[in-house]
């Protein structure tokens, strides 16, 4: 079976993509090469082919002949996730659920990614970011950082659909202005009612929705934003040294999430144009996408699986921006002590303050 492996032109050893230098680097002789330069030298020159159409007008591109050669697919025995990796990775555990991966088979099928954002942060940076994530958290159990066992740190290219759309919006509001005044007999409140209409367009670029059922959607949204200025046309060389998750949720199935976000944001943006009123209530909202397109992208994510007291904790770091997220356990006992302590402390200060006020300002109340 052919293995996707880039050989160092100098020493012949297997070379990997280095996130720090953004180059292919040889761990043996230290040589480094541009990805494009190496890709041209080692890949067949076939042009991508158009596959059958998918929903939302996305055509997608097929893999070039031989491009998938050497890429192995590992299947998770627990969550069923499929991970693509080359031989250099030696994947043994699922990056999403930390269960063993079944030995891979030849990768085939699915569409070829359009773009990829290469990793800018390496594994050490991810481990360091996790350590920083523990800092400044008063209610994190003190032993968590010490006893928490870092089981697995994997760099994963997570499949995302990037939706670009223009939306047409027409929103009607009932708005009010309130004026109050008084004379010697009455207080008056005047309410003026207005019918407000806002209609127009708003455009969105590259709203990401992850195409992996294994990747936690909320977690992936928490990692945003990604900066697409760094996105480059996909080349398999970028996968070297990392895992790549195969998409198993297609663009058509992902578009609903993008539509929700488009709807919410357009509604907010148009609402912001209605100013000068005491109340503004939308009574009719019609927001619909017009022109739209979708891209298939691989975005860099470090997944860090840890365990503590028999429970797994997963953290994720945006491999491009370094933003690390992940929920931490709370020390409920410490929280209860803080509540009681703060109540007593603040109460004591207020009692002293009250006694001072009552003595000197109110003439000795109580």
């Amino acid at each position, binding site marked *: 079976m052919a293995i996707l492996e880039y050989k160092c032109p100098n020493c012949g050893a297997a070379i990997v993509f280095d996130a720090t230098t953004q180059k292919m680097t040889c761990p043996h002789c230290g040589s480094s090469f541009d990805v494009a330069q190496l890709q041209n030298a080692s890949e067949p020159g076939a042009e991508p082919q158009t596959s059958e159409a998918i929903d939302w007008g996305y055509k997608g591109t097929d893999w070039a002949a031989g491009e998938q050669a050497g890429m192995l697919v590992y299947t998770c025995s627990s969550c069923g996730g499929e991970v693509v990796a080359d031989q250099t990775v030696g994947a043994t555990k699922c990056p999403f659920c930390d269960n063993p991966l079944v030995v891979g088979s030849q990768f085939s099928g699915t569409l070829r990614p359009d773009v990829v954002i290469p990793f800018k942060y390496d594994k050490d940076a991810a481990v360091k970011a996790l350590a920083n994530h523990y800092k400044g*958290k008063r*209610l994190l159990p003190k032993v968590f950082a010490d006893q928490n066992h870092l089981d697995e740190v994997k760099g994963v290219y997570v499949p995302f659909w990037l939706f670009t759309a223009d939306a047409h919006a027409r929103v009607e509001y009932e708005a009010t202005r309130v004026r109050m005044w008084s004379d*010697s*007999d*009455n*207080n*008056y*409140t*005047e309410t*003026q*009612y*207005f*019918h*407000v*209409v806002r*209609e127009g*367009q*708003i*455009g*969105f*670029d*590259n*709203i990401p929705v992850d195409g992996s059922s294994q990747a*936690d*959607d*909320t*977690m992936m*949204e*928490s990692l*945003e934003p990604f900066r697409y200025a760094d996105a480059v046309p996909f080349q398999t060389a970028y996968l070297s040294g990392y895992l790549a998750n195969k998409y198993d949720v297609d663009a058509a199935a992902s578009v609903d999430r993008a539509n*929700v*976000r488009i709807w*919410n*944001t357009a509604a907010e943006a148009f609402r912001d*144009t*209605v100013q000068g009123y005491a109340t503004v209530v939308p009574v009719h909202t019609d927001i619909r996408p017009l022109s739209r397109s979708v891209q298939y992208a691989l975005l860099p994510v470090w997944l860090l699986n840890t365990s503590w007291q028999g429970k797994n904790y997963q953290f994720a770091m945006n491999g491009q921006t370094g933003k690390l*997220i*992940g*929920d*931490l356990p*709370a020390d409920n006992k410490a*929280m209860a002590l803080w*509540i009681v*302590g*703060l*109540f007593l402390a*603040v*109460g004591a200060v*207020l*009692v002293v*303050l009250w006694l001072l*006020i*009552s*003595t000197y*300002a*109110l*003439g*000795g*109340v*109580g």
Partner: protein
Amino acid sequence: MKARLLAVSLLAIMLAFLCPSAHAQTQRVFDAEGLLTAAQQADLEAKLDDISARHDFDLVVATVTSMNGKEQRVFAADYYEAKGFGADGAILAVSATTRDWGFAATGFGLTAFTDSGQEVLYDSFLSDLSDDRFYDAFVAFADACDKFLTAAEDGDPITGDSSTSGGGYNPGGYETDSPYTGYQPSYPGYQPNYPYGGGDSMSDDEKATITAGGYTVGGGVAAVVAAAVPLSWRRKLRSVRPNTTAREYVRSGSMRLDVQADDFIRRSVIATPIPKMDDDNRHHDSFMGGSSFGGGGFGGGSFSSSSGGSFTGGGGKF
């Protein structure tokens, strides 16, 4: 961040209690009607300045051609606020044209000028006012305020019935035709009759109510702080949140408004009658009716200025 905001707020509240009221103005006599000579105005100004400085309390006198149809004490309070005086102060506003007078006090004035004490205060200047001896009336007003403030600072605000309170206050020979005997212009001093050295204008029940209220509010504040701060720390442990908007992905300059209409549909006006302070008026009217000055009077109770400030005071015709 929230904890810091909370701390700053508490600090601001504490400072608000501790800071003395500022004297935002130096002019304290506003003689729009020209009732005072220049010399009288200067003398009165000096007197008010002296009293204001000693008591850290803005004392103001104003003459106006009209009170704009407002209740006299409300007009006086609004005038005081409009001139930008401090949180603690009092004003006597007089219109010789309409024969109206209004008194309003705020801040420490709420303590110094008790409801029954105000009757004493008014009696000190109303006879001069009714005889058009305006300068004398204003001087009498200033002197009386000086004594009221001194008494209140000593913990024993002057009340109309001080002579019967048994608090050691000796009203002495105050001799006028007025129907009360509780006020002595030369304040003779005070012997404290309870541990905090305060006055006897507040009953034990009132003190107990205020104390209970203070502890309830304090307990509530302590509970809110004690719960809010750890909860904000707990929220810090959560960093996985759904992103339901796409603000970061709005194409720059892509938003375009084709229709922008704001059409007026209708209006409604609700009139709410302002409650009249009938009880207070009856009380004061009774006093005023028994005096030699005649005319209706207002006051003896707390009220709000047009902007919502808390005042006490009264007013009427002279």
